[in-house]
């Protein structure tokens, strides 16, 4: 009896553990809690792309991809627990999916030699790979977003924002405060006045903030929100009849979730974007054929082509491309986190590469180096069409203002290096 129980226990452990030869991509997802509506499509997109590679291409370089999901509920402590619980399974790269979790994992990733990919979130100055050796934030970071927003407003005003008023409405936390130094520097450069208005978590009540906006009558409002804060802000902007085309969210405030509850009044709302929108790309035909219709989708299959699903899919695409590069560079298919890190540091995403993956013009072209873990910071602007219930890009991907951002990144990363006794440099 004891023997039987022991055998069953071993079998259960083996069944629960990943096959060691697989390429392990942990997904610190949040399918529960107040932010689930945003977490589910990302997690679905991330998992479905790897499922597609497994089903269509027999994995990556002959190795099956194994996505291990760990539920964080967008909670920093749970995110760290997920990292600790999965790091022994030879993970290649983590997507922390939260700025709070990212800040906790940066030193751990350095200690463990496992790369983090914080795409469009996390610590902006991690772009400096000489300091943040295991953290990558390509293709964009929050400061790129702030700069892109200002660039867009410049383009609407013949290149001058002199005398204009811009308000930053932001989540009252590390994430929401990230763009303030950049916008302050940009306000000095371009001569606009900047006012910041904070919204406390969760942001269900924003009457004070929008009455203030109504009183101050800014020309433009930039918005750094997440979760319910987004839907309420769009509704409140409509309530005070703020011109929607002058209201622009960061990419985390620019999904279908954020505008649908406000109905027609959300028409014209803009959001920054670092990847394309919609399902009109060849890869989605394969996703439907090999994943959704085959009953292998991570979710219900009803999120395909939404903004956040596309973002998860794009993250998986970038991870898979780096894994391919790592296999080619190391000469082994069963790569390690160290191989992955080196490949991420040399990643070159071209239009040809995106097109080959069924994602033509899906994101900006960019190249990663040791000095630059963030790429060029190319951002486009998307706009919501309420009648068609769809987003569309209204600009090309264009680079951020490096002349303002680079000194800020240098200063912030140097301060981090000094605090943590890190010697700057490349291998």
């Amino acid at each position, binding site marked *: 009896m004891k023997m039987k129980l022991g055998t069953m226990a071993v079998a259960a452990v083996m069944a629960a553990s990943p096959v060691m030869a697989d390429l392990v991509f942990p997904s610190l997802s949040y*399918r*529960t*809690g*107040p*932010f*689930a*509506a945003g977490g*589910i499509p990302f997690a679905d997109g991330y998992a479905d792309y790897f499922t597609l590679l497994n089903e269509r291409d027999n994995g990556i370089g002959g190795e099956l991809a194994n996505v291990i999901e760990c539920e964080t509920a967008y909670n920093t402590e749970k995110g760290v627990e997920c990292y600790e619980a999965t790091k022994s399974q030879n993970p290649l790269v983590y997507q922390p999916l939260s700025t709070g979790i990212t800040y906790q994992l940066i030193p751990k990733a350095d200690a463990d030699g496992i790369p983090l990919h914080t795409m469009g979130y996390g610590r902006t100055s991690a772009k400096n790979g000489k300091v943040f050796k295991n953290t990558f934030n390509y293709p964009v970071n929050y400061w790129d977003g702030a700069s892109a927003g200002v660039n867009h407003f410049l383009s609407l005003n013949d290149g001058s924002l002199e005398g204009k008023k811009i308000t930053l409405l932001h989540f*009252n936390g590390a994430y929401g405060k990230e763009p303030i130094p950049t916008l302050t520097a940009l306000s000095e450069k371009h001569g606009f006045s900047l006012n*910041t*208005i*904070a*919204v*406390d*978590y*969760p942001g*269900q*009540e924003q*009457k*004070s*903030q929008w*009455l*203030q906006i*109504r*009183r101050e009558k800014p020309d433009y409002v930039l918005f750094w929100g997440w*979760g*319910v804060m987004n*839907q*309420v802000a769009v*509704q409140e902007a*409509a*309530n*005070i*009849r703020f011109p929607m085309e002058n209201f622009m969210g960061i990419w985390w405030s620019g999904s279908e*979730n954020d505008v*649908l*509850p406000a*109905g027609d*009044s959300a028409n014209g709302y803009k959001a920054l974007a670092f990847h394309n929108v919609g399902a009109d790309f060849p890869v989605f035909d394969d996703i439907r054929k090999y994943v959704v219709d085959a*009953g292998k989708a991570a979710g*219900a299959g*009803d999120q395909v082509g939404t903004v956040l699903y596309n973002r998860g899919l794009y993250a998986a695409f970038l991870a898979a491309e780096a894994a391919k590069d790592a296999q080619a560079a190391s000469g082994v298919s069963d790569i390690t986190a160290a191989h992955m890190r080196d490949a991420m540091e040399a990643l070159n995403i071209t239009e040809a590469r995106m097109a080959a993956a069924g994602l033509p013009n899906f994101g900006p072209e960019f190249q990663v180096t040791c000095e630059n873990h963030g790429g060029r910071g190319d951002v486009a602007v998307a706009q919501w069409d309420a009648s068609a219930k769809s987003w569309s890009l209204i600009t090309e991907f264009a680079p951020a203002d490096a002349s303002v951002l680079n000194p800020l990144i240098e200063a912030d990363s140097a301060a981090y290096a000094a605090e943590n006794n890190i010697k700057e440099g490349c291998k």
Partner: protein
Amino acid sequence: MPTDLLYGAEVVLNGLMAGVLYALVALGFVLIYKASGIFNYAQGVMALFAALTLVGIMEGQVPFSHLINAAFGTDIHHFGWHVPAFAAILLTLAVMVGFAYLVQRFVFRHLVGQEPIILFMATIGLAYFLEGVGDLMWGSEIKKMAVGLPQGGSLWVEENTQWLGFGNEDFYGFFIDKLDMVATVIAVVLVLALVAFSQYTKQGRAMRAVADDHQAALSVGVSLNFIWILVWSLAGFVALVAGIMWGAKSGVQFSLSLIALKALPVLMLGGFTSIPGAIVGGLIIGVGEKLFEFSFGPMLGGATENWFAYVLALVFLVFRPQGLFGEKIIERV
């Protein structure tokens, strides 16, 4: 009138409206606490569940469709019909009454006579259970609350208050959200109805008797089980109203359960046992936090409302621990 004064008046008006919305949430807590001494941690989740159910019924969504599809390999999500808002509200009410029965039958009936902390912990379990059931039943995507409530600032109010600025271009009339105006009317009707119910109906008097003394009420033939089902049903109804109002502002989504955070300072201030206290407490908190943000927010970096509401409630607690309208607890030895 100086512009700042006009702006201040606008903030007060909007604070009053916001306070009404907080009070709507607080009312559900008061009803249950008053009748059973239970601090219902699940009240916010009940508002979420009620709103999810209402929208699900209106849209003809098949409950538990993901589970059904996964178990039977089907692909059904909708019945293919749309239920009018009024009928859907009645059906949702029926669901909330059913929920009240189940809660009483399977949870609190077995916990009669237990310490308040045990009952409180049971409501914590209930909250997480109900959140999970809501997710399984209706999914976790954000839904629009389309029950026909008006939205947006009232143009009539704006145009008819513009003269107060006496030609000042910086002032173009008071902003009042039409949804907040509707919420105020509904809250007033709701409170009057609840007070009338508890004062002038047999069940209402029985409810008050149970609230005053369980044992004495039982000895005169009042059914404790029935009263608790009644109270949880009423709390479910209040949760539905709160869910509709808050859901119309933000869409129906899982963070709706967090509206309970807004009710706590209201309860501390108004008292846990008074229906008018919930309203007055809500108004004081609403006006207080908005005025503080307006006056001192810019100096303090903004986002003062969440913590200031609790500070205000704490100040009241120091001087009146039972809250403004709560019953003073006197224990004689």
